[in-house]
């Protein structure tokens, strides 16, 4: 705290320090949520500028890092909001066929879920697994990705997400349902199928 205070006693004269201290951290935080490096870079820049603008209101009630992360979070949400405006509604419909293929005419499983029998905590220590997660997340179509990230990674509630994405509550649930359906299938194909093959050998 003392260290931070001394640096920030005069942030206005020393903005470079902020970037050196928190830039990489904020960049990682952003990149894990928006995936595109240029978008993440811009969000970090906007965060620092907003922080400069509102620094006089900062009361040291939280750490600088937490404060900056809060600003970045809002910037990330704004990004999803803007993106949703540009996107066509039709990606709610996309992927629909693939999902329908999982079930037969009577709504019974055609491609049955496998037995994963896995502990997320243990899997998460494996670099390869994180790569697969990344790949699956980037494969989600626009609004589904936004909805899922906002819900499960940023931690927003559904009501807020509907507002941010400007969709009805029902559509919001549909987006989340489809995103989850896609992600679990993607993990099954790209991770668990291989694991099971290895184990059965």
């Amino acid at each position, binding site marked *: 705290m003392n260290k931070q205070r001394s640096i920030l006693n005069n942030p206005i004269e020393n903005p470079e320090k902020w*970037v050196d201290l928190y830039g990489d951290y904020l960049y990682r935080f952003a990149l894990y949520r928006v995936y595109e490096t240029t978008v993440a870079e811009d969000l970090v820049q906007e965060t620092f500028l907003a922080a400069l603008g509102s620094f006089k209101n900062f009361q040291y009630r939280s750490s600088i890092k937490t404060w900056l992360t809060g600003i970045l979070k809002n910037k990330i949400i704004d990004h999803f909001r803007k993106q949703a405006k540009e996107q066509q509604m039709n990606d709610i419909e996309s992927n629909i066929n693939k999902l329908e293929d999982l079930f037969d005419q009577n709504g019974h499983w055609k491609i049955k879920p496998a037995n994963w029998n896995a502990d997320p905590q243990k899997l998460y220590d494996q670099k390869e697994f994180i790569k697969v997660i990344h790949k699956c997340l980037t494969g989600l179509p626009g609004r589904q990705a936004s909805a899922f990230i906002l819900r499960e990674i940023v931690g927003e509630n559904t009501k807020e997400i509907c507002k941010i994405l400007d969709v009805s509550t029902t559509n919001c649930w549909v987006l989340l349902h489809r995103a989850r359906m896609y992600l679990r299938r993607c993990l099954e194909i790209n991770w668990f199928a291989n694991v099971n093959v290895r184990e059965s050998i």
Partner: protein
Amino acid sequence: MKPWMFNCKKVTQLLSESLDRNLPLYQRMGMRIHLMMCKFCSRYKEQLLFLRKTARLYSESSEDSDLSIQLSSEVGQRIKESMVRFLKKHE
């Protein structure tokens, strides 16, 4: 659709929704009845919970795990310059 007639497709939709809102009683009942009889939907339910936990880990790990992800020095420089410009403008 009557609760005791929910099929797998319907149940997967309700399982997802139950992560985002409180379902009405008859839907919860229908889901429970179906899950008792259907091993695949039970697996699906486990997998949704798995996804949620994984997303949480992902969210937490973004902050400190992969330290090799860094701002490039050019971008860092660009940001610093934009901050200096910002301060000049608002002096």
